[in-house]
């Protein structure tokens, strides 16, 4: 006997929602829990490696807004010494053109996305502030070597429940607190 016409659909629906009751919630409680972002994220910051930089100013030329200000003088070994390297992140639209343009991989996009400030002038970053540190890590955008070292993004859709692999289980929160706490 088929029950399709006898209101079995209501019972099916009720059973379905009841099963949902026992699933772990997918909510990410943001400030405490953070997902691992994409390895190639263009997070809203830039990381500058001073030892790789030759002061060629290709990044400054490639910037559509002209946000990068770079001042150099000729050093003792006929090289450029960078005096000033400033990026106005207030006007930066995180297009990543400067990162792609850099021939020496001296500039990279950052992993962090928590760079809100209270003052406009705090968004203009000097060359000391732009250097990599514990809270300012480079992302793998246009940088395959860095990308290979980063953990995979945690996505719900990739998580295979039967085999417990692919993506990451949402309950784990591996993005370190140190990196996550901006400012």
């Amino acid at each position, binding site marked *: 006997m088929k029950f399709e*016409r006898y*209101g079995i659909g209501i019972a099916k629906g009720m059973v379905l929602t009841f099963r*949902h009751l026992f699933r772990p919630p997918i909510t990410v409680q943001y400030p405490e829990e953070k997902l691992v972002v994409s390895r190639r994220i263009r997070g809203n910051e830039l990381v500058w490696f001073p030892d790789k930089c030759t002061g060629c100013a290709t990044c400054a030329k490639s910037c559509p807004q002209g946000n990068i200000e770079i001042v150099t003088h000729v050093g003792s070994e006929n090289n450029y010494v960078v005096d000033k390297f400033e990026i106005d992140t207030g006007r930066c639209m995180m297009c990543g053109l400067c990162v792609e343009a850099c021939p020496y991989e001296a500039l990279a996009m950052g992993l962090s996305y928590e760079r809100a400030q209270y003052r406009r002038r705090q968004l203009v970053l000097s060359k000391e502030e732009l250097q990599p540190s514990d809270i300012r890590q480079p992302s793998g955008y246009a940088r395959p070597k860095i990308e290979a070292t980063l953990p995979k993004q945690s996505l719900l859709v990739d998580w295979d429940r039967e085999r417990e692999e692919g993506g990451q289980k949402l309950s784990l929160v591996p993005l370190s607190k140190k990196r996550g706490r901006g400012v």
Partner: protein
Amino acid sequence: MMTLLEQFQLWLASIWPDWAAYITPAIVGIVVVLIFVLVMVIVFIWFERRLLGRFQIRLGPNRLGPEGIFQPLATALKVLLKEDIVPTKADKLVHWLAPVIVFVPILLVFAVVPFGKGAIFTDLNVGIVYVVAISSISVVGIFMAGWASNNKYALIAALRTVAQMVSYELPVVMSILGVVLMVGSLSMTQIVDAQKIPFILLQPLGFIIFFLGAVAEMNRSPFDLLEADSEIVAGYHIEYSGMKFAMFYLGEYGHALAYSCIIATLFLSGWQGPLLPPIIWFVIKIIAVFFVIVWMRSTLPRLRVDQLMSFAWKGLLPMAVINLFIVAAEVLWLAESLLWVMVLVNIAVAGVLILLWSRLFTLGGGRVEV
């Protein structure tokens, strides 16, 4: 059998003057019932929001206090501090009066709800009739709100409410009659005392009809036509804010609480239960009833107006009448000792009737494939 309040009154009369002994127990009873209602409403709001979250694989509010238990208090505070707006062309007096008329009858219902042995505000001998009569009054309040708002959506909602209430009152009362026939009394305490086994087993069909009718009367999903957000914005309380809206909100959950209490009393053997104290059993039962209501809300889509009407008149009402006749026949001819035979027969009858009637409500009269 005297209620606790009557005993208290007798004891007071021996030490205090008559008038004080007459008034004090009433005030004590009112305060206790009011505290119970307010606390339970807050628990209900929290419970529903958390549970609904879990049904939708969310967490629900969990920030304020342990597991978010103080969220309803914060919401209440927020609502109370909001500006009280009255539309210019509204009927001021009726607009002001409506929330009160919605809320007060719901409080009155708790006067006949037994919380334990003798723990009842007043043991009316027509308790269940009183409940039916009083709880219907809040419809007038909703209609007043819809009318006085001078808003087309509110008026549509008000008219829908009246149609819905009038329709669903009948099956609800019919299914109550089955219980009353078995007990032989209208008093709530005697209804509880008579339930050696819960009436949900003896009258599964009556329970289902009463439950669905009650959900329709308290205007909850899937019967929440009068505040259908996607059709008529917020229905009758569209023009309300601040304290008055809080009254409606409180009334809505108070209504759910009241009907949970009535269902627990009529069909789930009220405060009776082993080991635990009566009040704990009672709270467990009303929360269980409310759980099913939230479960339905999270699952079932809202009915259309014509579906709502046909469900009441073609579905619930004939089934309630048949149920009433079967119960009457059983009470008349079946011996007391054959209680379990009655249980089996009634469950079988309920199953067959639901199967037969569900055929009526296939989509598009059965022509359209889903």
